[in-house]
């Protein structure tokens, strides 16, 4: 171990990779957040919650009663006076109490968990549904991982709080208060003497526990660094092997592994102090009990039975105090988690629907841009007063360099943003007057990269229209020319695929996305043509499929391939958010303007090499 450490210092590859460390997992207690969280319990406040509390109350009272009965009555009365009848009665009473406690516990556990799980379920559902409606820029700004952490981990971390946390809090407070009251009524002097350990226990439970938790958080951060690297080295193993960097990577790994080891060792050491401290405080309590308690029995202030009750209750202290410490820590974690959750819930989508929004009845697909101007947040004007007319059923090709405004036009048609000036109309209706659902279900976008969901090929294509039958799915696949390659696979349409898989080539994935879009059968199709070059055969199939896909609907294409652009009914040439030229291929070639130059330079390059 020590040898490894000195080697580590000498390695130059320790800083090779960088994995940003996680955020803080604890935040101070905040009443407003707590109230907001508790609002999720509200739907169950009249039914489950009171029953759970009743069950809890019953079992807690029994737990408090039994030691008194055993101490005061059994020992001091029955046994001391050799009263067998009283003993029998007491045993029966105690058995009945235990039975009640059993029933109470059973219901308590059941109800408390039902309550907690339902609350968490509701919270998670609300968060997920809300996030679905948020706009593109929300997702662009964040990594998939950070969103996943909120919906899954942060919500889950509240699980303990909502299932056991709240009820336990009440249980423990009642227990502690109950015990203290009982001890004082048995013997105030002994109570005070023994209770001196209470503050010590509280201290251990909160401060020490918090210290320990912090060091485990450090461990978690290191661990996540370790795991990030493991993940990355697995994914990049081919690169590592082709550049023969195995040794260098192993040196980096040794560093991370050692860091992790160190942090764990420290955390373990701190944790190991916990047990002994608990024992010691118990021991002090016991010693006080023995010495002072015996003294009090001797001078007749208390009976042996009282002493026995004290012994019982002393043993019962630790559990509620420890749990209170735990709950406090849970609350701090809950504050951090809920802050992140509420951050998302407070986000709003970019566009709002008017209360009196109308539905599209039978959309034709005639799109008009009427003096539209648009800027993104950073005041960059993306579109300068664009006016274009796209008739229903036409194929429009948008041509221009990156940043010329093509994607912006597409986004405005789907109403992912609203124009800053002017209006976008479909069938004469300003989009701001229409219902979002009604608009969007008539529009499909085919993206550059096709995302594959894990499931079968059939499932993936069916995503375009989930209610479609198997036959409809296969028909769509046939039309786009995907059917053949699918049938060549061992399990055909039932072949399991996933995003990171390698079963489908880039070209085949494109065909799949065409099939999806065809199945969706939208009135307006927006197509962002893939730029990646694929083998010519598949390329041709895609060209054919494209023709079928464009037919019978208004299609707006962000196109790169000349063959695609040529076929369009109208070509719009954009630059820096302005329309330079409009017309079909022949017209624009005759015009010998910007379009002509673009076409010519493509061929010049083909020849030059």
């Amino acid at each position, binding site marked *: 171990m020590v040898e490894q450490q000195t080697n580590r210092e000498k390695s130059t590859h320790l800083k090779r990779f960088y994995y940003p460390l996680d955020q803080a997992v604890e935040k101070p207690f905040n009443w407003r957040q707590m109230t907001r969280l508790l609002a999720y319990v509200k739907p169950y406040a009249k039914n489950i919650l009171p029953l759970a509390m009743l069950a809890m109350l019953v079992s807690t009272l029994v737990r408090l009663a039994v030691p008194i009965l055993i101490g005061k009555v059994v020992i001091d009365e029955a046994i001391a006076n050799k009263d067998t009848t009283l003993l029998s009665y007491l045993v029966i009473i105690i058995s009945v109490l235990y039975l009640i406690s059993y029933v109470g516990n059973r219901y308590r556990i059941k109800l408390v968990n039902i309550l907690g799980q339902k609350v968490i379920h509701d919270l998670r559902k609300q968060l997920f549904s809300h996030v679905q409606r948020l706009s593109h820029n929300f997702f662009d700004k964040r990594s998939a991982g950070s969103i996943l952490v909120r919906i*899954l981990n942060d919500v889950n971390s509240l699980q303990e709080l909502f299932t056991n946390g709240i009820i336990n809090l009440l249980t423990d407070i009642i227990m502690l208060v109950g015990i203290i009251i009982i001890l004082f009524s048995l013997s105030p002097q002994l109570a005070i003497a023994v209770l001196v350990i209470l503050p010590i226990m509280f201290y251990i439970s909160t401060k020490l526990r918090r210290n320990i938790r912090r060091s485990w958080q450090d461990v978690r951060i290191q661990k996540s660094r370790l795991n990030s690297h493991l993940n990355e080295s697995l994914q990049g193993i081919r690169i590592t092997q082709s*550049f023969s960097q195995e040794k260098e990577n192993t040196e980096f*790994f040794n560093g991370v592994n050692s860091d992790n080891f160190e942090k764990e060792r420290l955390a373990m050491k701190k944790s190991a102090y916990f047990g002994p401290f608990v024992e010691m405080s118990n021991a002090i309590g016991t010693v006080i009990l023995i010495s002072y308690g015996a003294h009090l029995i001797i001078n007749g202030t208390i009976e042996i039975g009282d002493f026995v009750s004290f012994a019982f209750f002393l043993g019962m202290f630790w559990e509620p105090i420890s749990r209170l410490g735990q709950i406090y820590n849970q609350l701090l974690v809950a504050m951090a988690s809920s802050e992140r959750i509420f951050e998302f819930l407070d986000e709003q989508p970019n566009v709002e629907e008017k209360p009196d929004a109308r539905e599209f009845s039978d959309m034709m697909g005639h799109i008009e841009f009427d003096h539209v101007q648009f800027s993104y947040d950073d005041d960059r004007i993306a579109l300068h007063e664009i006016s274009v007319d796209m008739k229903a059923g036409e194929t429009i090709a948008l041509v221009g360099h990156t940043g010329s405004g093509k994607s912006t036009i597409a986004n405005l048609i789907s109403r992912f943003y609203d124009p800053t000036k002017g209006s976008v109309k479909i069938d004469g209706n300003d989009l701001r007057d229409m219902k979002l659902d009604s608009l969007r279900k008539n529009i499909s976008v085919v993206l550059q990269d096709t995302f594959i969901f894990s499931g079968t090929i059939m499932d993936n294509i069916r995503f375009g229209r989930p209610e479609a039958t198997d036959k409809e799915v296969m028909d769509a696949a046939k039309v786009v020319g995907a059917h053949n390659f699918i049938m060549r696979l061992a399990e055909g349409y039932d072949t399991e695929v996933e995003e990171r898989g390698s079963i489908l080539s880039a070209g085949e994935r494109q065909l799949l996305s065409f099939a999806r879009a065809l199945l969706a059968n939208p009135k307006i199709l927006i197509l962002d043509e893939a730029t990646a070059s694929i*083998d010519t055969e*598949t390329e041709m199939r895609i060209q054919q499929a494209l023709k079928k896909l464009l037919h019978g609907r208004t299609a707006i294409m962000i196109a790169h391939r000349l063959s695609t652009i040529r076929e369009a009914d109208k070509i719009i040439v954009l630059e820096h958010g302005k329309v330079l030229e409009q017309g079909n291929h022949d017209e624009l070639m005759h015009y010998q303007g910007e379009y002509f130059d673009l076409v010519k330079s493509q061929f010049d390059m083909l020849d030059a090499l």
Partner: protein
Amino acid sequence: METFKKLKQFYWPYKKYFFASLFFVILVTAITVVYPIILQITIDDVVLKEQYSLIPYLAIGFILIMVIKGISNFTQQYLGDLFGVSSVYSLRDGLYKKLQRLSFTYYDNARTGDLMSRLTMDVEGFKFFLAAGLKELIRIVLLIVISLSVMFFYSVPLALVTMAAMPFLAVVVYKFDQKVHPAFRTVRKSLGKLNTRIQENVSGMNTVKSLSKEDFEIDRFTVNNENYREVNIKTSNIWAKYFPFMEFIGNVSMVALLIYGGFLVMNGDLSLGKLIAFFSLVNYILGPLVQLGFIVNQFSQAKAAGERLLEILEAEEDTQEKEDAISSGEIKGHVRFDHVTLKYVDEDDKALKDISFDAPPGKVMGLIGATGAGKTSITQLMTRFYDPVKGNVYIDEQSTKNYSLKFLRKQIGFVLQESFLFSTTIKENIAYGNPEAKMEDIIAAAKRAQAHDFIMEMPNGYETMLGERGMGLSGGQKQRIAIARAILIDPKILILDDATSAVDMETEFKIQKALKEVMQGRTTFIIAHRISSLKHADEILVLEEGQIIEQGKHEELVENNGPYQRIYDIQYQDKEEIMNISG
């Protein structure tokens, strides 16, 4: 047991921690039982027999023993955990080293998610067992045995009566374990599904929005969400059914103790102190008995985890290096394939069938053909990512098998189809193959790959951090950095596998101009779909289903009336027509 034996090399070096920890555990357990004994003495001897002088001795004795217990407890836990953590440190190290060495074939069939789960959860499961599980088992057995002994020492009949419930409890604990562990597994599975569902939704959000399927996604999610809630409730119902019952059985023992014990005390057959001691001793047995079930389960889980780890540690390393492999010298870059046949594992079709060609140093070879025709396979054989089943691949007239892997691969600059970049700066990514590279060389490589300009436009230039939380790059930008990475190591053989597929024509044109000088004196293999990418090659191989069906220079092939000409016609068809219209 086999599993544990096989993993011995990882934990046995630290055995001293384990045995020391065990010693202290025994000490602690023995002392634990002291508490009821002290109670007993206090009541019987101090109070009832009025030997008050004993009090200070008892108190001091008790404190001393507790201090020893405290120190022992600390030591036992710390050493036990140290044993676990140290063993796992070695284990991780061993796993990592092994994974670095495993071949492409292994990774073709492995799933990252599955491997990660083994490297994280299974390792943790094993650690937990080493650090705590085994020790807890010993502690519990010991505690039960010692407590029982004391009980029997105090009063045989009362011990028997009190412990009558024990076998019954054991049965209930057993039944509980049978039910609860499968229930936990169901919960874990449901969580996994929920996880995947949310992950896919978020990663594929663009697609969801592109087809307006938000409602559909919410519906799918609701199914998983509700399922997760239900399995959790079911599991806690099992808890609710058994736990209070187990507690009740313990309580019944308490009642038996009261009545029979009370009776014995009243008859003078048992001292009051011993009765009170019994109350504590009972808890020392019944509680741990319930825990026993969990510990035993941990044992089987650790075994399963160990097995999954062994699968990695014992995986076959397909690519073997010779002992006297060549690992130094000057390579000229002469590549020759001699009747090479390649077959991937588990496939009926051969990826390459009887391939032969000759590429003297400095020659530029183009490879074109449909997906799966064999282009990538050819290049992968040169770096020995796979080995041929028949025939030989020669570099400078030595079979690739005669070279050490490290030496061989350092001579070849590979730009793979999937341009993967690491979580580090752009500079480090380009210098990946040669971490000692100077900044000037890095910049030069970047310039040639047409990457320098866009890098300089980034906020931190070459120090810009890439990765999940770092800057995102477009496909074309990633590829150019990958090209720079390959150029930097100054390889004798350069392989560009679809290296400019995501790059637009204009940029590709610039890259190729720059690469022209880079390729001087280096044997280069270009795999592409666009004829414009490889038209300038010295020789072009047209592949179909693992065989070379045409070869020659571009000028010859376009007149050959073969597949190459067909591809050419398609890709260049519009040109004449269009240029004619414009006049």
